[in-house]
């Protein structure tokens, strides 16, 4: 998450002196990157995924599931693994995986590959000379390289990425699931036997009592949270600094209030007995009783409740800056839709909520706006996109219809630097925020060789899409990041959702599709996407006709409200929208796939289709169902430690191959 520079961070009052300096130099760095790379064109479309995990510690005797705080040791071990095997060509492993159909065999291969890939590859190539790749140098692609592992905000969290990007040919999509499976296997190998890496959005009892292993107390001065110990924050200095500076800038604790799910026995009104209303350790303790904690809501008061969530993120490299800007725009209306069908967060701090997603909680968790800024600055620095940025003629000015705060000085600097109006406005909006963490030894930077100041701001604006210029000293091109999806339990699902979005992005470019709609409608969709059971209960704004008529001049689009089933599976009328799944399928056919590829990728399309129609439950619905039908559930919205334990146990079994028809139908095979 963001950059991990070493050094000493300035405390908030000290750092305020440098805000304009960072902004000005960040823009200079952007201008330099832009000039250097504007003509950079890539022939190859590359992409990658980021998966985050929560390491759970299980105690079968006590029937307790807790989060394990051993991130530092685990990451060190994973780092050693990466270092040890960075010269191994992993492709024979993927060749072996391709040749097997049986899950036992797949598991055996992954086990050997995770344990010692060097030895395994040697043996594989000996037994199957055709597996050897004839490359002098190892190509920089996911199927050839060792995966990489990263720290995240939570000290119980891990992140993994493929060691190099995936390509965008159909056959490249077949590596994704195996790559993800291998990553989990490697992590598992470096955990203790009672620890498991779970890809769940949040730990259901985060912030309750006895939820960490080892035991910790929620009385830390960094977050000053009632519920989250400072020990759950990654020890790298950046993270506690971020936490404290956000709290200091806004002059009160962060406050997220998620409506509680009212069940038969839930007390109404709900005044949370687990909130220590009268604690008096810190001045901010009184925030809660002074109104920060709302009645009938689940109150959360720390960055960890947001940034301690896991998600699924994709980064695409576009062919050029213009294509990156177009993709950014065209995928923006898609972000709420993918959020809705990936919903996986129905519970917070041990309570069932009246929503199914984590998005607004993270928005609140890093919201650094002061009380007065709440009136003048429309959104948190973590939230959905505010501006379309492409110069495509179909990007009509009226689509940017929400108020947007920009830094005038930065805007002028950008325009003077030769950047066009739309991109200038976008950057000036990003730079309207204050830099949250400034390292004293990193203030002086050479703007022609460093992009630290630029990254400082670009990486602490957490939007549903992120626009990323090429890094210096690399062959990487202009990129966009798709950030709204919630993480799923299994690699099958994560691969399905990832590959679906990638293929949709290719279809958008290939068929010249136009999903533009007013930002205000996209924002409405973001709200609806997070609703409990949005699949059945909500409608989403959608452009009536995304098919561009290249002969006619671009006209103001017509928009209507559709269900997710209609958006993904089509309107079932002759002139109706054929559905995103059908569009992707058409794109798939244009690539003339062979039967294996078609069969493999079709599983992914069918899963997405069934999640959108409700034939398969979203994970949020599935989790909610598990909790509410658990024999020990008291119909009071409480996720007790026993229920939590059983739920995590069941999720672990599903990850390990146990079937569940309500979740997957017949798609996972």
């Amino acid at each position: 998450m963001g950059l991990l520079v070493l050094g000493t961070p300035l405390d908030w009052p000290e750092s305020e002196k440098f805000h304009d300096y960072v902004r000005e130099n960040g823009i200079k760095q952007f201008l330099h990157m832009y000039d250097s790379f504007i003509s950079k064109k890539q022939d190859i479309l590359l992409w990658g995924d980021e998966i985050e995990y929560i390491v759970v510690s299980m105690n079968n005797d006590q029937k307790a599931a807790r989060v394990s705080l051993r991130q530092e040791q685990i990451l060190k071990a994973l780092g050693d693994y990466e270092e040890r095997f960075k010269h191994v060509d992993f492709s024979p492993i993927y060749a072996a995986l391709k040749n097997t159909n049986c899950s036992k065999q797949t598991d055996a291969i992954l086990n050997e590959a995770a344990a010692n890939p060097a030895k395994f590859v040697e043996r594989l190539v000996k037994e199957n000379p055709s597996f050897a790749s004839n490359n002098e140098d190892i190509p920089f692609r996911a199927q050839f390289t060792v995966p990489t592992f990263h720290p995240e905000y939570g000290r119980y969290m891990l992140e993994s990425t493929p060691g190099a990007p995936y390509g965008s040919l159909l056959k490249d999509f077949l590596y994704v699931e195996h790559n993800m499976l291998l990553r989990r296997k490697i992590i598992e190998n470096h955990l203790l036997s009672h620890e498991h890496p779970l890809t769940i959005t949040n730990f259901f009892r985060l912030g309750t009592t006895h939820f960490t292993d080892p035991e910790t107390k929620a009385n830390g001065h960094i977050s000053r949270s009632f519920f989250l110990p400072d020990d759950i924050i990654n020890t790298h200095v950046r993270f506690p600094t971020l936490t404290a500076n956000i709290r200091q800038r806004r002059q009160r604790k962060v406050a997220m209030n998620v409506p509680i799910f009212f069940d038969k026995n839930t007390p109404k009104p709900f005044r949370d007995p687990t909130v220590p209303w009268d604690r008096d350790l810190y001045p901010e303790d009184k925030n809660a009783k002074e109104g920060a904690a709302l009645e009938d809501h689940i109150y959360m008061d720390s960055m960890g409740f947001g940034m301690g969530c896991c998600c699924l993120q994709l980064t695409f490299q576009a062919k050029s800056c213009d294509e990156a800007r177009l993709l950014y725009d065209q995928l923006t209306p898609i972000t709420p839709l993918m959020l809705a069908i990936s919903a996986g967060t129905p519970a917070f701090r041990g309570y069932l909520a009246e929503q199914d997603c984590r998005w607004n909680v993270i928005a609140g968790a890093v919201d650094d706006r002061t009380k007065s800024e709440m009136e003048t600055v429309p959104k948190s620095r973590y939230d959905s996109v505010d501006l379309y940025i492409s110069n495509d003629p179909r990007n009509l000015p009226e689509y940017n219809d929400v108020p947007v705060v920009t830094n005038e000085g930065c805007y002028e600097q950008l325009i003077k630097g030769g950047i066009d109006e739309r991109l200038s406005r976008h950057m000036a909006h990003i730079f309207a925020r204050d830099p949250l963490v400034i390292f004293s030894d990193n203030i002086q930077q050479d703007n022609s060789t460093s992009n630290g100041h630029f990254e400082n701001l670009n990486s602490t604006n957490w939007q549903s899409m992120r626009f990323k210029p090429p890094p210096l000293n690399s062959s990487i091109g202009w990129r966009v990041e798709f950030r709204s999806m919630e993480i799923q339990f299994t690699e099958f699902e994560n691969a399905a959702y990832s590959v679906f979005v990638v293929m949709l992005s290719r279809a958008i470019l290939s068929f010249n599709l136009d999903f533009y709609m007013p930002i205000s409608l996209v924002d409405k969709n973001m709200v609806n996407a997070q609703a409990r059971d949005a699949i059945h209960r909500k409608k989403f704004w959608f452009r009536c006709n995304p098919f561009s008529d290249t002969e006619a001049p671009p006209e103001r689009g017509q928009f209507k409200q559709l269900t997710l089933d209609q958006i993904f599976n089509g309107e079932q009328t002759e002139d109706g929208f054929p559905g995103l799944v059908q569009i992707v399928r058409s794109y798939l056919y244009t690539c003339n796939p062979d039967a294996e590829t078609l069969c493999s990728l079709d599983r992914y399309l069918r899963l997405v289709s069934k999640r959108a129609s409700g034939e398969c439950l979203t994970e949020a619905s599935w989790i909610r169902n598990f909790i509410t039908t658990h024999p020990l559930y008291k119909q009071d919205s409480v996720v007790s430690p026993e229920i939590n334990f059983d739920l995590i146990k069941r999720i672990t079994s599903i990850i390990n191959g146990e079937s569940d028809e309500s979740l997957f139908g017949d798609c996972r095979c």
Partner: protein
Amino acid sequence: MLIAALGPNIPFPAYGVGTALYKKDNSKFQTETVDSVKKAIENGFTHIDCAEIYGNEEEVGAALKDLKVPREKLFITSKVSRGIEDIPAALSTSLKKLGLDYLDLYLLHAPRFFYEKKIPLSKGWEAMETELGQGRLHAIGVSNFYVEDLEKLMETAKIPPRVNQIEFHPQVFTRSKSLLDYCRSKNILVEGYSSLRPLTKEPEGPVSKLAKSLAEKYNVSDSLILLAWSSSQGVAPVTTTSKVERMKDYLTYKTVKLEQADIDALTEAGEESSRPLLYL
């Protein structure tokens, strides 16, 4: 229609170079067929549907060669029947006769060829699947398959057929309803041939009479009424004619929007004069 904007869709109506233009004498090259195909394409058909068994792939090939239409603008379907024992070879033969490098769609013509030769359907389908993605065909499907045949195929199939081409018009509706439902559930597009059979074979029958009166109501030809009826059932028509006027007419079938009551009336008329399905 919006679907038209998507990828390599299958254009309809397809122009069938089939039994109506059937070669009675296999040895003679029929220039009438060549002329018909040329006229069809010149007047707007882009999907040509032929088959090994009709024995006129060479005529189609001659028409295509003469016209010099860019290959990517056309959609050519053929079918294998007698050659099912060696599908790659049958495909080669068809491609040679048609003068093409690839087919857009290749179909197993009918299950009966498999039953006659005691070859399992799955084996034929496997051969088709192996050809997919190798460059000589872009999509694979079946024809005259009923639910039992499809189920047998799906037992071992990696992917379902893209299309199933069957006889379809109001008089066979009742017998094909479960097949239509099955195909819809598996995402198999249904193509229908003999759409106009009630008009040509039973001009005094209830379907034909109703089609003629609806033709007046909607101010279109009776053929178009039946094509529109097929379309309303989710079936894409394969048509044929040697007359240019009819060609131009059939191409407009999607513009006819029948009211639900009229659609139901045609279905009912079909049920009244119900027929068994043709087997090839």
